[in-house]
């Protein structure tokens, strides 16, 4: 488990094993109902159809239900009760599309005044009819994911606007295994719950709002104990059919996956994988998303859109410079299963799988089915599995108790800021001094980053290069992609949007009194400078200071004046190097890779903290040399680059195993992440 749970809140509700709350969210059991069941009513089939038609006609709500789509099924607008197919097996897409739509306009803007960006209106009240229990369980997981990590106003509005009418599974989908995941039934999470008994339909009431829906129904009668027995028998039969011989219970997945991280099973299975992203797109518990800007043909207005993304897609981890952090399909394939069975359980307390079988059914290469994968892992390593290595599954409390959408700060809304000064550092890098328009300081710690937002182009994560304090802050921007290219065209007085600061920076307090060895490569000097300048400003608070800096060629040296000043200071050691130096270029430093500088300074490896920031390749060699000199692992501090898109731990792009670099990083203690194969791959 990570040191603290995301959001810091502890789960309050004891849960069943598949993410199913055991306590009721709304209402209380009727004292006279058998075994404490919620109120159950009965409608004849004819009256039920009249009820649904009355909802469509008179309720003023959008009524969406399960309908046939070719030979498959999908949720869609209901025009008549005749179209509702309660006998469906599984829908192509889960109902997550109503809460986190495939394409969602987050804001519309006018480039002349982009900070007046508007969030679009949300649909009127809506009712979803026919949601299966496993999908209700998935919605509860989604609540926990979006509400426990970072409030999402749009999500919350949609969730609160939507009534859920559940229904029992009558035809078990071919690849479903919800019986093993404990999601074949749910005791709450719905407003009404239907069981189609042929001639009649049983209706369980899950909430007061659900009860109020029934005013559109005529001919309601109370369920008899016989009706209740029929419902229970039907449920038991569906759940028992959806078992599929899963060999490891969900509680054991964590251990199985962790111990098999390096198993050859991953490359064996991923060889079939098309990398098409289907398994993540159709999954009710995959929530990763991308954000893109579009400009309309008038070249004046535009919108920022959120759209589904998936970790199986190659460009999911690609950063502006073109680096792809999970280039190999095997790594991406493995990441998907680990996120479901390990990373999200660590973070939120539940296995992010409800056993709907959509991935297995829709993967044309048959590489995505969790039952086949888990059983395969078990077959190659049965001795690894221990029972109950995880806490019982937990999903957070009921959504309706959460703050109203109006109180929630909208995600992704940048604050207006103004470029105060632009300085050209090199051919590729420029420095931007920026002030927030609200007059407040950024309030960052050294090593933190911001998302710079240029409406119509997008956002890019940029480390803060200046030390804390002061009314402005500085960013060093290398021109690599659309956002950074457009940034390079900015002048003093131009507006940018700023979100942040984000992430965990350097722990300045813990560094006080310590000897410090800074090792910076290339653009890595920018985030490191936020700490260096703080240390130099409060020089007496720290022990010996050494700064090693390397880049490819002399013309790439950042902050020339400051670097030159280091060389003249008597209270620090400084060496610099370039990988190569053209003959005609003056250069007063060394030539060679940065590791060649380490033996050239005096420092006590055991009594010094090293702070390393540079390109991915640099870490391995620098850390290897420092460890060889006897530096303790815990004395090595690094800052890692990944694709930080949302900044708040929900979009999924920057993850290293279960760690969200945007939240738990980008600054890490080497000892904490050294065993994560993806960290320094």
């Amino acid at each position, binding site marked *: 488990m990570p040191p603290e749970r995301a959001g810091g809140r502890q789960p309050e509700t004891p849960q069943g094993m598949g993410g199913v709350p055991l306590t009721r969210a709304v209402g209380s059991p009727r004292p006279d109902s058998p075994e404490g069941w919620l109120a159950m009513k009965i409608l004849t089939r004819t009256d039920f159809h009249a009820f649904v038609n009355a909802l469509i006609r008179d309720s003023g709500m959008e009524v969406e239900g399960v309908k046939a789509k070719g030979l498959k099924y999908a949720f869609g607008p209901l025009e008549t009760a005749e179209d509702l197919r309660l006998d469906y097996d599984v829908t192509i*897409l889960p109902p997550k599309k109503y809460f986190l739509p*495939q394409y969602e306009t987050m804001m519309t803007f006018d480039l002349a005044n982009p900070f007046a960006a508007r969030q679009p209106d949300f649909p009127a009240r809506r009712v979803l009819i026919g949601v299966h229990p496993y999908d209700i369980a998935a919605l509860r997981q989604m609540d926990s994911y979006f509400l426990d990590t970072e409030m999402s106003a749009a999500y919350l509005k949609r969730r609160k606007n939507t009534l859920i009418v559940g229904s029992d599974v009558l035809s078990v989908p071919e690849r479903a295994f919800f019986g093993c995941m404990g999601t074949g039934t749910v005791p709450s999470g719905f407003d009404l719950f239907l069981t189609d008994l042929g001639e009649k339909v049983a209706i369980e009431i899950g909430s007061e709002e659900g009860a109020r829906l029934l005013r559109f129904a005529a001919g309601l009668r109370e369920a008899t104990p016989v009706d209740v027995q029929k419902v229970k028998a039907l449920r038991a039969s569906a759940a028992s059919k959806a078992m599929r011989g899963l060999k490891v219970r969900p509680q054991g997945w964590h251990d199985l996956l962790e111990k098999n991280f390096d198993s050859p099973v991953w490359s064996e299975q991923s060889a079939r994988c098309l990398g098409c992203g*289907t398994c993540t797109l159709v999954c009710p518990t995959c929530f990763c998303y991308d954000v893109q800007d579009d400009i309309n043909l008038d070249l004046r207005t535009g919108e920022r859109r959120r759209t589904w993304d998936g970790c199986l897609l*190659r460009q999911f981890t690609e950063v502006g410079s073109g680096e792809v952090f999970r280039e190999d399909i095997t790594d991406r394939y493995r990441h998907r299963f680990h996120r479901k069975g390990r990373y999200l359980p660590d973070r939120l307390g539940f296995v992010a799988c409800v056993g709907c079988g959509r991935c297995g059914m*829709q993967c044309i*290469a048959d590489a995505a089915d969790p039952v086949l994968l888990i059983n395969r892992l078990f077959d190659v390593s049965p001795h690894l599995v221990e029972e109950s290595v995880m806490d019982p599954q937990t999903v957070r409390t009921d959504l309706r108790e959460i703050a109203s959408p109006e109180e929630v700060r909208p995600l992704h809304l940048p604050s207006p800021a103004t470029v105060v000064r632009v300085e050209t550092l090199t051919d590729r890098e420029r420095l931007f001094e920026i002030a927030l328009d609200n007059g407040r300081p950024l309030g960052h710690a050294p090593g933190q980053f911001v998302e710079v937002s240029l409406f119509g182009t997008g956002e890019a994560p940029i480390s803060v290069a200046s030390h804390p304090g002061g009314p402005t802050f500085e960013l060093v921007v290398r021109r690599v992609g659309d956002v950074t290219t*457009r940034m390079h065209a900015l002048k003093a007085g131009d507006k940018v949007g700023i979100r942040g600061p984000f992430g965990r920076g350097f722990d300045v307090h813990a560094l006080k009194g310590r000897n410090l060895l800074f090792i910076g490569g290339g653009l890595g000097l920018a985030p490191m400078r936020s700490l260096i300048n703080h240390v130099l400003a409060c020089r007496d608070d720290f022990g010996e200071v050494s700064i090693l800096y390397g880049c490819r060629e002399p013309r790439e040296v950042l902050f020339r004046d400051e670097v030159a000043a280091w060389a003249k200071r008597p209270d620090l050691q400084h060496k610099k190097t370039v990988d190569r130096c053209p003959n005609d270029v003056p250069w007063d430093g060394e030539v060679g890779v940065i590791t060649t500088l380490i033996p050239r300074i005096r420092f006590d490896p055991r009594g010094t903290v090293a702070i390393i920031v540079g390109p991915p390749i640099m870490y391995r060699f620098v850390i290897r040399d420092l460890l060889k000199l006897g530096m303790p692992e815990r004395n090595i501090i690094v800052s890692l680059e990944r694709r930080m898109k949302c900044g708040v731990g929900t979009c999924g792009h920057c993850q290293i195993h279960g760690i969200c670099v945007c939240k738990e990083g980008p600054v890490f203690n080497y000892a904490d992440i050294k065993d994560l194969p993806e960290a320094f791959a």
Partner: protein
Amino acid sequence: MKPRIAFFDFASCEGCQLQVANLEETLLDVLRLVDVVSFREVMKEHADDYDIAVVEGSIARPMDEERIRAIRARAKLLIALGACAHLGGVQRLGNRWTPEQNKKAVYDGADGNDIGDNNPFFEKPRHRALDEVVKVDVVIPGCPVNRDELARVLVALLTGRRPPIPDYPLCVECKKKENVCLFTIGKVCMGPVTRAGCGAACPTYGNECEACRGFISHPHADAQIDVLRKHGLTPEEILSRQTLFTARHLEQQGKVS
């Protein structure tokens, strides 16, 4: 000043230019952004003074080669429009045989008098994509191109952004549309290896994707071949699916001549 834009065509059906002409109400918006100085399909006027050249068609004959070089020399920006300009088009299939064999296949026996000897299209019919002859700045893939994508690319270019051509498979768009996967109803489809951006137009109407937009930059071609084989396709059928529009990719891998 508005950028001046000119349209040209080489070996092609001109269907992509027709898509531009069919932009309908959007066309008026586009015309506010650019000055069209040459567009044979919709106007009589022609000028050789342009900033952006939009070129449809594949390059086959020496005379085509000369002409595209001249266009390239005049244009600040060259856009390859559609599958013929992007990949060489379906006509690239003819590259597998010699010009003589192709001529024989087309003319022999069909018309006793005309054996195609005077037909310049058989002069040196090795169909190539534009970027195999000149530098291409932007590719708008598809057979035909997607009108909305064309407009998006134009907006991106005019606002200094990279053209938003996706590099993920068609399945992504198809799933987001909640289409019934064609593989589940007994059809086969090139979607898993094909570049998205068309909105999964063909599968949405029940038609198999034929990869007219070319492959994504890192297609899992072997896994796709496995799937096609499991769905009953013979090696010949698989090759034919792979080469209809995308022979260029296979040529690059040395898998077909």
